């Protein structure tokens, strides 16, 4: 059990880093609280696995500190950190039975055999592996193997945290869901800090209470799934979370009007003032496809857009629109009429996010 703190942590694989791009992890501070279920979400190559390996001690960071409960553990190897890690591909000891696999970490530290038995039986029961205990691990299915590698982490009672590195990659979709629920169950039962690395937002939001979104070696936002959805901190989060991602329109103010391309946007005074005050040339307004009001007929304050095509996904459709030369996506529910040819859009003010140099700036609507 531990609280994991990352203090001005940075890591590079190069011996002579020159620019921020040379860093796999750019300088960051972060705290994983004891007992939390966290997800580390990001695209391939954003540094998620690097960060995980630094926490577990498989990698030593180039600079900064990793603290467990306030103690610096940089120099401690993984075996001394008391951490469990589950890898993308199930790691099992082929020649051993499931029982011996689960007992392995305990036997390595010379735990009395009676205690080993007790723990193995307990963990096997939680993971529903009791029936397989006598089988050779080699002959298990992928999801059973992954449960065994997870079990080897759980079997140690004093484990500080369990780290998951995309553990469901090789699991069949219908089993994924089952295993994810199992993970949640284990989390609630043992109250262990869990950090779950994934590039799948659905996986992240069903597992974690709080998600850290990583982008180019940085945590760009750390929040609940709802926060990430409603108030993305960074354009990347807006784009990466949600399906489809957030719409972004590059805007400027001209003669007191907010212009996106050659079209004036109908937005409130608050948004207008905020855009006008921005001192950057990189100003964007973001709005989720779910929040765009799409009307098939002309409405007051409606911006006229061109409908390119619509994609019917059953309970809802995605409408592909062009507004002032900028492509937009909007999501409409099945009971709403799908516009063809032209559509009139409205952006509710409170749903608009202002992004200056890619970072969110709060708008004062007063």
């Amino acid at each position, binding site marked *: 059990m531990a609280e994991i703190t990352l203090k001005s942590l940075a890591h590079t694989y190069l011996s002579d880093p020159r620019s921020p791009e040379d860093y796999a992890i750019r300088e960051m501070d972060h705290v994983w609280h004891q007992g939390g279920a966290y997800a580390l979400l990001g695209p391939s190559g954003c540094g998620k696995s690097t960060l995980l*390996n630094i926490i*577990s001690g*498989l990698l030593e960071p180039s600079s900064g500190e990793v603290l467990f409960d306030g103690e610096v553990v940089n120099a401690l*190897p*993984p*075996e001394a950190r008391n*951490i*469990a*890690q589950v*890898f*993308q*591909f199930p*790691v099992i*000891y*082929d*020649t*051993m039975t499931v029982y011996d696999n689960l007992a*392995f*970490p305990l036997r*390595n*530290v010379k735990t009395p055999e009676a205690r080993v038995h007790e723990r193995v039986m307990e963990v096997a029961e939680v993971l529903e592996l009791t029936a397989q205990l*006598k*089988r*050779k691990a*080699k*002959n298990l299915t992928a999801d059973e193997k992954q449960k065994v*590698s997870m079990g*080897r*982490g759980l079997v140690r009672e004093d484990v500080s945290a369990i780290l998951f590195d995309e553990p469901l990659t090789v699991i069949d979709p219908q089993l994924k869901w089952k295993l994810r629920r199992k993970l949640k169950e284990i989390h609630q039962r043992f109250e262990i800090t869990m950090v779950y690395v994934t590039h799948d937002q659905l996986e992240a939001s069903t597992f974690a209470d709080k998600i850290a979104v990583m982008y180019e070696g940085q945590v760009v936002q750390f929040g609940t799934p709802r926060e990430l959805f409603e108030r993305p901190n960074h354009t990347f989060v807006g784009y990466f979370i949600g399906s489809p991602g957030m719409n972004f329109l590059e805007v400027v103010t001209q003669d007191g009007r907010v212009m996106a391309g050659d079209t004036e946007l109908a937005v409130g005074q608050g948004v207008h003032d905020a855009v006008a005050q921005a001192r950057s040339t990189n100003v964007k307004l973001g709005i989720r496809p779910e929040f765009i009001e799409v009307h098939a007929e002309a409405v007051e304050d409606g911006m006229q857009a061109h409908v390119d095509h619509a994609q019917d996904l059953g309970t809802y459709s995605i409408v592909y629109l062009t507004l002032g030369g900028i492509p937009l996506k909007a999501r409409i529910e099945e009971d709403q009429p799908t516009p063809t040819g032209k559509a009139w859009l409205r952006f509710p003010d409170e749903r608009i996010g202002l992004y200056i140099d890619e970072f969110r700036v709060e708008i004062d609507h007063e």
Partner: protein
Amino acid sequence: MNKVYNNRAWWLILPMLLLVAFSAVIPLMTVVNYSVQDVFDANTRFFTGTEWFEVMLNDPALQAAVLRQFAFSLTVLAIEVPLGIGIALIMPKKGWQASAVLILVTMPLLIPWNVVGSIWQIFTRGDIGLMGWSLRELGYGYNITSSPVDAWATIILMDVWHWTPLIALLCFSGLRSIPDAYYQAARIDRASKWAVFRYIQLPKLTNVLVIGVLLRFMHSFMIYAEPFVLTGGGPGSSTTFLSQSLTTMAIGQQDLGPSAAFSLIYFLIILLVTWVFYTAIMNMQKDDKIQEA
């Protein structure tokens, strides 16, 4: 799914059958032919049935050669397999060192049998050979032409030098194919070095080791040129292995009948041992599956 039964499909194996017939069965048949006859000249021959086989099986010199052969093969296997694994484990994994070591290790494998024999013949000479001379200078009366112990030790050393690289290379490639995650998981599980070897590396090496042991057994059981050049089978007959006995009989004495019978026995021994070994290994893996059911 409905399985279609059509026995005409057997014709499809005909080309393979022909190929095997011409490459193996027909040449072997000529040996079988000689083994059951006593041939005097092109026109005079007698059918002898199993007589040659009985003679050969009861020949004390040959029985001794068979035992010697097994002793030799098992000894070199017992040394080369662990040594090969050990070398593979300490070989550098990357960088120019890896390439350099790989080339150095492979070198003995590229040298022809006869040349290996000659190299060691010179190497072990008491007057000009580095090893022979050094051992004598150190006060040990090393002499492979008079001491059977010296001769045996030298032949085994030579075979180990020549063929351990094969096991090492096979194991090296086997070790390279183990994903890093296994080692990382082992560290997190606090496995000792021995446990990593016993439960990760060795199981992953099983397949290459089966191949390595089979190859080495067959090779060593057929060894001929190296001891022939080095010791000529001596002193006495202490290093006369099966191939050499056979050659002496077939070429030296022109005893075609007995040597044909002996060839077949020789061939069957190799076949039997490799088959038993292979089946035993395969059954070990099968048992797992039965256990599972």
